[in-house]
């Protein structure tokens, strides 16, 4: 051919147009203009320059079209072409041919031709129209034809893991590859679909971005040099020198990324880092870069070690397992990146010589590409460190601690892991508060159940909070509420035998459980979660209290306790005591329970107590305490109130023992009151009678005085006990119970009530001294009663005798005898003398009694004034209202200190 090789491109282009259109040069003017414009517009700069790659593509295309024979033929031809050195850019012509090739099976699209037709008609006649308006369809058409196939492939790439920030798109920010995607559609769609599909979007971007820098416009010289350089590099490798090339390092690094020792880079266990072997002949920069890259491998090892260890640990629990699963997923993404890098390396190996510098893997490239994964792995390794040795709720707290960071990338990653990790905890929680079921084999949940506890102690002992397992995103208050809700449900089911399904009880709809829930928990923590817990809490507690009050009449029983055990029902108590008096005077060993029970029932029937509900009366009973020698009935008698079932949760055995102690105390005080009343009665009755025995008046007077003192004392004590102790505390208790929101409140209020009563009734350990004094006072009262009885007996006897004597005298006079014989009179005189002599004895006895009594009361007063309880101090004022004792007791003279208390003296 004589045609010169070097024609200008324009001329060539024009010739091309002529040839294809089959017209003369003049006619092809606008097509030529268009062609020039397109060529000049430079819109698709990226093409791979590898001849072999293109050849492979062609072969693949042919095979795809099921033309294997042609593919073989093509290989043959290509080989021939390759052997001839005429063409410089074999790849370009091959590429062009490929792009121009048409699948014989493909139908030509009619639409575009018509569109082109219509677009054609007008401008052909009107030359003045600028052609780019004239051909609007064709330009974008070709554009879209190219972008359309690339769009779906870029869409699929957005989900590729390497540059994706969040895995499931739950809570993370918009993945950063998004802005890249529209840009990519402008990039060379025809870059080589296989390459694009292999690499992630960001990798593709970086790879293709390298291409434009070496445009075809200036390309002539460079590909040659590139080829030459690669050739020389390859030769260097196979030459077997000691020099470690970058390619070898890259290979090593890719192994190190997975934690496997490479040829030159090995793990040094002593220093716990990767080191490049010292003897390798390596430039310093390469060495440094390699070591920097090796960090990724170190991080990977750390994470891998943790997950491997944990997977062997049987007792790691659900939370830990989900944590490991999350880590696994992250590692999988990392492995995906590694596989891409590997395949790139593989490609270089396969394609052999002619790969240009631009698209090979270098350490620098690796640095850039692994930057994001490195940050991710660093975060994960830090998490792994922090979570060592923890499980369950603790683990969740540890992960939660890491979400408190300002870096949004890290925060989204950790939040994602946190939502996965806390999902089991939340499912435990929802199960617990809606069903009351706890299936926690690995002890991860913060509610612990003790299986050894029986149902009677279910409320108090069976369920406790495991404080260490409370995650840090659940407050203490919430966790207590959660415990309470589940406890109430279990209580209802087991103790109250109330099997109402939870759905009826709780109007709150149960939300579906999913990781989405867990993620929501962290974005909306204040409202939704708290609201759920509160709603469940209110409903459950309300229902529980309703059941307790209606079905088990808890409040009624509380009032019954007050009436019977705390001596609230006065008439009943009085009557009971009257009936029991003759019985209880006997020694304790002669008492029989059934006798006493019979008396109790008589008392009930005779008083207002009969109008109580039979349920309550059924529980009332007599209890005989343990008998010590020398006890009378008074010492061993006690009332009792039986409790069972749910009521026993509030009135536990301890509470009942407290009640019995208080009953004992109150009963004794009441008894003293009645004794003194009897003494008073005795006074009333016998005063008139004994006026005729004038010697007695001194004794009797003393008796009266002592009795009055005692009456005053007991009176004040009773007032104090009844009003200041019992009534006030009871009022408080009743208010609290009415306002209570859940069973815990009731139990707490009840315990406070009992504690107050016990301390105020001097029954607790700190008031032991006071109580002893009081007991001593009571003993004195009994002594007085006995003494008084003796005195009255003697007095009455004497009176009787004297009356008899008078009677006899009268009788004798009536009979006409001497009224009184001398012997009789003497006898009478002697007797009266004896009687008179016995009086001082009685007097002194009484005086001793008085003295003793007063001493005790003074001691009691001193102790009262030094006590810390205010109401006891006021009691001391009332007892000594006229300073009767103060006059006698020097210690009471000391003025009150600044705090209104007398300091205690020994």
């Amino acid at each position, binding site marked *: *051919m004589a*045609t010169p*090789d070097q*024609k200008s*491109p324009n001329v*060539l*282009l024009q010739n*091309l*147009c002529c*040839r*294809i*259109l*089959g017209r003369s040069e003049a006619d092809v003017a606008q*097509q030529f203009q*268009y*062609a020039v414009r*397109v*060529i000049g*517009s*430079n*819109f698709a*700069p990226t*093409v791979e320059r590898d001849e072999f790659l293109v050849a492979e593509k062609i072969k693949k295309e*042919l095979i795809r079209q099921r*033309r294997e024979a042609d593919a073989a*033929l*093509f290989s043959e*031809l290509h080989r*021939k*072409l390759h052997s*001839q*050195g005429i*063409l*410089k*850019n074999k790849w*370009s*012509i*091959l590429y*062009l*041919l*490929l*792009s*121009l*090739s048409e*699948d*014989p099976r493909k139908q030509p699209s009619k639409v*575009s*031709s*018509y569109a*082109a*037709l219509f677009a*054609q*008609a007008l401008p052909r006649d009107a030359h003045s129209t600028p052609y780019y308006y004239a051909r609007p369809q*064709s330009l974008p058409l*070709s554009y879209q034809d190219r972008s359309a196939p690339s769009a779906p492939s870029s869409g699929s790439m957005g989900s590729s893991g390497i540059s994706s920030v969040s895995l499931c798109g739950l809570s993370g920010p918009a993945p950063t590859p998004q802005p890249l995607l529209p840009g990519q559609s402008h990039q*060379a769609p*025809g870059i080589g679909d296989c390459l694009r599909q292999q690499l992630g979007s960001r990798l593709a971007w970086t790879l293709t971005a390298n291409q434009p820098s070496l445009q*075809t*416009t*200036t390309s002539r010289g460079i590909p040659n040099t590139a080829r030459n350089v690669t050739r020389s590099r390859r030769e260097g490798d196979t030459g077997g020198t000691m020099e470690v090339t970058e390619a070898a390092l890259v290979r090593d690094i890719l192994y190190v990324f997975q934690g496997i020792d490479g040829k030159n880079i090995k793990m040094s266990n002593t220093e716990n880092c990767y080191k490049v072997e010292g003897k390798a002949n390596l430039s310093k920069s390469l060495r440094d870069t390699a070591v920097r890259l090796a960090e990724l491998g170190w991080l990977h090892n750390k994470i891998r070690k943790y997950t491997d260890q944990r997977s062997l640990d049987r007792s790691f629990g659900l939370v830990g397992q989900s944590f490991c699963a999350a880590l696994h997923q992250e590692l999988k993404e990392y492995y995906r990146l590694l596989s891409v890098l590997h395949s790139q390396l593989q490609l270089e190996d396969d394609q052999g010589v002619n790969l240009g510098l631009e698209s090979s893997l270098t350490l620098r490239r690796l640095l850039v590409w692994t930057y994001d994964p490195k940050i991710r792995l660093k975060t994960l390794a830090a998490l792994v460190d922090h979570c060592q040795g923890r499980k369950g709720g603790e683990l969740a707290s540890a992960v939660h601690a890491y979400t408190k960071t300002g870096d949004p990338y890290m925060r989204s990653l950790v939040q994602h892991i946190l939502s996965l990790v806390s999902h089991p905890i939340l499912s435990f929680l929802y199960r617990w508060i809606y069903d009351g079921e706890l299936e926690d084999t690995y002890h991860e949940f913060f509610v612990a159940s003790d299986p050894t506890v029986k149902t009677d102690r279910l409320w108090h002992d069976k369920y406790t909070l495991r404080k260490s397992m409370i995650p840090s995103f659940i407050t203490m208050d919430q966790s207590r509420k959660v415990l309470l809700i589940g406890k109430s449900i279990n209580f209802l089911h087991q103790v109250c035998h109330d099997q109402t399904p939870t759905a009826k009880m709780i109007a709150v709809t149960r939300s579906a459980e999913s990781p989405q829930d867990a993620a929501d928990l962290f974005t909306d923590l204040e409202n939704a979660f708290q609201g759920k817990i509160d709603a469940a809490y209110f409903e459950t507690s309300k229902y529980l209290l309703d059941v307790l009050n209606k079905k088990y009449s808890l409040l009624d029983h509380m009032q019954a306790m007050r009436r019977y055990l705390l001596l609230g029902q006065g008439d009943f108590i009085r009557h009971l005591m009257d009936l029991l008096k003759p019985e209880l005077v006997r020694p304790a060993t002669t008492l029989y329970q059934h006798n006493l029970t019979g008396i109790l029932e008589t008392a009930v029937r005779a008083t207002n107590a009969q109008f109580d509900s039979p349920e309550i009366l059924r529980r009332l009973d007599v209890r005989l305490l343990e008998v010590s020698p020398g006890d009378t009935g008074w010492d061993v008698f006690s009332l009792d109130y039986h409790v069972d079932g749910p009521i026993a949760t509030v009135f536990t055995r301890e509470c009942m023992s407290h009640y019995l102690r208080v009953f004992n105390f109150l009963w004794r005080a009441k008894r003293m009151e009645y004794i003194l009343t009897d003494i008073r009665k005795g006074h009333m009755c016998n005063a008139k009678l004994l006026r005729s025995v004038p010697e007695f008046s001194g004794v009797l007077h003393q008796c009266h005085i002592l009795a009055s003192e005692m009456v005053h004392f007991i009176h004040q004590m009773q007032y104090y006990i009844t009003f200041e102790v019992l009534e006030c505390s009871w009022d408080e208790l009743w208010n609290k119970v009415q306002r209570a929101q859940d069973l815990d409140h009731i139990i707490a209020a009840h315990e406070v009530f009992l504690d107050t009563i016990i301390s105020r009734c001097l029954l607790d350990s700190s008031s032991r001294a006071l109580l002893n004094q009081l007991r001593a006072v009571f003993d004195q009262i009994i002594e007085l009663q006995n003494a008084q009885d003796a005195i009255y007996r003697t007095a009455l006897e004497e009176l009787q005798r004297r009356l008899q004597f008078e009677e006899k005298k009268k009788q004798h006079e009536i009979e006409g005898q001497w009224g009184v014989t001398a012997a009789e009179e003497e006898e009478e005189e002697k007797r009266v003398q004896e009687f008179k002599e016995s009086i001082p004895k009685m007097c002194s006895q009484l005086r001793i009694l008085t003295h003793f009594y007063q001493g005790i009361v003074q001691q009691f007063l001193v102790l009262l004034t030094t006590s810390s309880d205010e109401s006891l101090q006021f009691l001391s004022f009332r007892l000594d209202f006229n300073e009767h004792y103060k006059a006698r007791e020097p210690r009471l003279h000391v003025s009150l200190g600044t705090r209104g208390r007398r300091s205690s003296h020994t």
Partner: protein
Amino acid sequence: MASGLEARAATNMNAVRDTMDVLLEISRILNTGLDRETLSICVRLCEQGINLEALSSVIKELRKVTEALKAAENMTADFLEKF
């Protein structure tokens, strides 16, 4: 020397022809629809380093234009024939 040059030119031309034949064969296999002339122009353009994508799109467009024109001619011909 001249003969050497000529000989080399001759071998060159033979080589060129062979190359062209091979390329033509390849283009036939690939169904590109390019004839020898067009192919040679293309080769020359490629050797000069043209933007391949652009070139191929231009060729495709030109082809479409040709088809459109042919279709138009056929249609008008048919139309005219009827009447």
